[in-house]
């Protein structure tokens, strides 16, 4: 995950929390307050590649992320009672 992607998701979380906090305190979440988050989100959005933006779109839409092209692990056979894991790092 790129720095821009990580920062974007982090800020989305902070924006949601700030909005919820205002709601709980029954205070309006003003445009200026939201704008502060949006300006920074916009900066990181423009830093992302198209693929990174698409990944964010999927994540925020609640869709499963794409499987990585190179799987970092592969399945291996295990014997009954074995203490080794059923996967090992891919070659």
């Amino acid at each position: 995950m790129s720095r821009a992607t990580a920062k974007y998701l982090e800020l989305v979380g902070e924006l949601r929390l700030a909005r919820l906090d205002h709601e709980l305190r029954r205070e309006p979440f003003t445009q200026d307050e939201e704008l502060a988050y949006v300006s920074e989100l916009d900066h990181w959005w423009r830093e992302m590649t198209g693929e990174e933006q698409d990944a964010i779109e999927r994540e925020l839409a609640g869709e499963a992320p794409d499987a990585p092209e190179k799987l970092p692990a592969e399945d291996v056979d295990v014997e009954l009672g074995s203490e080794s894991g059923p996967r090992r790092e891919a070659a």
Partner: protein
Amino acid sequence: MFGRCRRARDANAIVGLQCILGLVSAASPPSQSSPPSAPAAADLRLFRTFVTDDKNRPKIGNQDLMLGARVGIDIKPDRDGMVGPGKGGMSVTPNDPAGLPPHLRPTSLTGGQSTLPVFSIAASKLGESLRFQAAKRHPERHGFVEPSMAMKLEAYQDALGATALDWAPWEAAA
């Protein structure tokens, strides 16, 4: 293809039939996977999230989410302070507010994170000094209201501000 045609047919029987026959392409909201549609410029609606003034209209200015271009970000004037077509401008989303970036997309739409108001304008209302230009990257969901000819930056900003009354608030369908 046929899903689009079905929707078009529901709205207009002749267009729907022509669509199925491949004579026209049905206008449909863009999705992230569909190619950009190219409706007639006059029919095209452009969407943008704004901060608003005390009359709940888009706030005119050159800062984030205002009706205007951010100098150095949205548009870069030359040494003589001139701007022109093909060099960017104020960002908009064509056709469907669902194409706005998540942080500018209303929470009522899938993936949307914004509670700021969205407005829309018909491209035909931009006037002679402005034009819509689809972006090279993701043209189905991003474009610019850019100068239609070479002009001073101030004239471009004034032309954008002059559209303030033509932007209509968008609300999600019930």
